[in-house]
């Protein structure tokens, strides 16, 4: 494996990057560097490299994008096994030929890789109806700290043999090993889809969300956007969302009859609650809004992007509190799941960012939640609470890391 190029990694400076073209090469590379105690930074499409604590230990990058083969796609079994370096766009394209999909929204899908989205536990608006990667990864292979390829799970949709190590790697930020191959459970593509954007006043947001939660319809998406986000989105695609202080976007995916019925029913249920206007986007006309809702977390114009997780019932209040910090703050909440993404700060100073994070963490914790930094400069992140408030199980996570990667080779300093 030759030193192909160098990479600037989240404040670490330039590190040499290797591009193994087989798992054997990768395993050799890990073994060699492990014995020399050199840190290893796994790389996919590079879409989320600003996520996590900036690393400080020099080491090598390992670019997985040459490990991008589809190993097996038995479409009738609705599973696929692919190498970690395949891009999500290519994966979805292939699945679409069999009228199937992985129902996870992934920003920058033409760059993001399968291994990368698993390591960062990427999700999007559809998680309300379709869940997250933990509901789809049924088998995984990784190269461990000893340079061995090890596996867990399997290729069948139901399997309880051994520990479900797949779960441990989802969201592990590449700190436990290098993901080489993944088996996914798939879903059929829905026959029909629709998005309904409902404009509303501040005081009617939570009542509307509560009503939708108990609605006769069964939405797959329940997103909330604030005025700055609405304005920015409408600049991308004119007139996509009603001009209002807040907008709730409700998504449906089902067969044709069920989507039509739900649209009608939703309009009846919202009668009187949507003073700010209502846009109905059915079929292909929903695509641009889906795209915007998916890509929102990857917007990079602002200096700080945070992610909050709170109880769904506390989401509207949290968002309203957050907007008091800066009228320019752009917010998207997956309100049915209590997940909030916020972009803030064209003229923000680092002190202000610290103060903001403190306040946000306080408000989120009132709804049993937390706030983490999703994206910011390495310089800022050294002074910000990247993982928010400390959790009581962190010591156990550190113990797990110590057992699976005792020399702290993989992405050292990223998580802890």
């Amino acid at each position, binding site marked *: 494996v030759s030193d192909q190029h160098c990479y600037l990694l989240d404040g670490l400076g330039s590190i040499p990057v290797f591009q193994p073209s087989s798992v054997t090469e990768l395993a050799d590379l890990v073994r060699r560097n492990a014995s020399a105690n050199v840190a290893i930074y796994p790389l996919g499409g590079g879409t989320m490299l600003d996520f996590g604590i900036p690393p400080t230990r020099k080491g090598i990058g390992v670019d997985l994008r040459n490990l991008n083969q589809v190993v097996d796609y038995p479409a009738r079994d609705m599973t696929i096994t692919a190498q970690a370096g395949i891009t999500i766009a290519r994966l979805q394209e292939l699945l679409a030929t069999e009228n199937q999909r992985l129902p996870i929204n992934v920003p920058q899908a033409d760059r993001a890789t399968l291994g990368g989205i698993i390591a960062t*536990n990427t999700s999007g608006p559809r998680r309300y109806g379709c869940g997250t990667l933990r509901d789809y990864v049924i088998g995984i292979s990784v190269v461990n700290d000893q340079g061995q390829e090890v596996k867990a799970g399997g290729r*069948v949709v139901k399997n309880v043999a*051994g520990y479900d190590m797949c779960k441990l790697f989802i969201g592990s930020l590449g700190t436990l090993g290098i993901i080489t191959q993944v088996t996914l459970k798939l879903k059929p593509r829905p026959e029909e889809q629709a998005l309904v954007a409902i404009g509303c006043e501040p005081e009617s947001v939570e009542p509307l969300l509560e009503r939708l939660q108990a609605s006769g319809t069964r939405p797959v998406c329940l997103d909330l956007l604030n005025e700055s986000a609405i304005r920015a989105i409408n600049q991308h695609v004119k007139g996509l969302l009603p001009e209002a202080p807040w907008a709730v976007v409700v998504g449906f995916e089902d067969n044709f009859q069920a989507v039509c019925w739900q649209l009608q029913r939703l309009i009846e249920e919202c009668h009187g609650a949507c003073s700010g206007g209502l846009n109905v986007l059915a079929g292909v006309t929903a695509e641009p809004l889906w795209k915007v809702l998916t890509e929102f977390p990857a917007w990079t114009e602002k200096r700080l992007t945070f992610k909050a997780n709170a109880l769904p*019932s506390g989401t509207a209040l949290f968002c309203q509190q957050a907007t008091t910090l800066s009228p320019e703050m752009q917010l998207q909440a997956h309100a049915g799941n209590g997940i909030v993404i916020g972009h803030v700060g064209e003229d923000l100073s680092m002190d202000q960012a610290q103060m903001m994070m403190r306040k946000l963490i306080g408000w989120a914790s009132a709804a*049993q939640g937390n706030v983490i930094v999703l994206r910011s400069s390495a310089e800022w992140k050294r002074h910000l609470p990247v993982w928010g408030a400390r959790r009581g199980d962190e010591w156990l996570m550190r113990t797990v890391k110590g057992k699976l990667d005792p020399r702290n080779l993989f992405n050292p300093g990223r998580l802890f």
Partner: protein
Amino acid sequence: MSALALGSRLNLVDQLRNIVGADAILTSASDLLVYECDGFTIEKNKPDVVVFPTSPEQVVQIVKTCNELDVPFLPRGAGTSLAGGCLPVGGGVMIALTRMKRILEVSCRDRYAVVEPGVVNKWLSDHLKPQGYHFAPDPSSQGACTVGGNAATNSGGPHTLKYGVTVNHVLGLELVLPDGRVVQTGGAVEDNPGYDLTGVIVGSEGTLGIATKIWVRITRNPEAYRTLLGIFETVDDATNTISDIIGAGIIPGALEMLDQLILQAVEAAYRFGFPLDAGAVLIMEVDGLEAGLEADAERITAIARKNNARDVRRAASESERLLLWKARKNAFGAVGRLAPSYCTQDGVVPRTKLPHILREIQRIGAKHQLRICNVFHAGDGNIHPIMLFDERIPEQVQRVLQASHEILEECLKCGGSVTGEHGIGVEKIDFMPKLFTPEDLNMMLRLRSAFNPEGRCSPAKMFPTAGACIEPTKAGRRAAL
């Protein structure tokens, strides 16, 4: 088979009695008999003591006492597991969690509930019914099995095809670790940063600690159902129908198959009106919004007819639907009409390999002169072949064990697994090296050592290195699936 000398056993019992009280401890040989096995009855061993704590604090004290006295311990729910997961290998203290049975919190707005581990699966769904919610995992033992046990074994059931298994519905755990420390993983909110410890603890069969509180996702009840009964001349036609339904992009709530032999038993017991000469029947149920169901039901009917279904009947009323499900869920009870003893297995194959594995099962049955009937979760490829025999005849027992083994080997050859929902326990430890390499197993053991370094919690489970060698000589899994 106790690990304890008499003196230290008395000391242990005294200390435990002080923790839980005299009415929450069992020590006599006759009382302990109940706890010598679960639904896997091949191997039996009595614990030294059974305790029934009523609070997490008591569990902590029990665990600490076991550590101080160097006594193994293990958790137990209702004991409906089928692979020996709560067999007290080496004796020790059995911590029965059935008195920790409170539903602590329910929030429909935030779609979660918090329960103690001893809450019976069906109680939770019954409790949620007035609000229009349920707990989605519904193993056939749901009237008895506990949510704690479901989490330990990552239970399945007939609705996993659409709704997933237990782990997809567990958000967080309060866990008493094997050294007595308490930790909360996950919780009511989603996406906590760091490792998904909850995800890996679910299904760990009690080897990583003892859950004392469980945060579960609650699911809205479907608005409506369409339940169809497809009647086929051959097993192949039925399995092709399954494959075509999935291929058409329909995910039914349940897809269950019964073959001719089990049909005859079920019909004799419940008189549902199943045709006795059919090769197989499929129970095909779609659920969801009323508005969309008719279209799905019509497509399923057309697919079944295309695959030579002799007839496709519809449950015309809710009572007919419930009767059909009663026949399915109690099918195992009807097997008693066919033979004095039976034993079942829990293999999984990719859905498209169902015709192959069912043919192989018949071949293996013929080879060992055994009658085998099938009733199983066809949509998931999770087979439950039932072997009929007479346990009083040792030579028949040997043939059953041999046939079981060959069926599971064939599942592995098809790229499947030896257990879809029952677990490894002690029963299938020998298969672990066939499913996983020594390096794979080592990764799992490293994880275990982060939680359970002394191996005192649920010893000799899941992993071949645990030191227990179990030589099955009797076949005896009887519980309903």
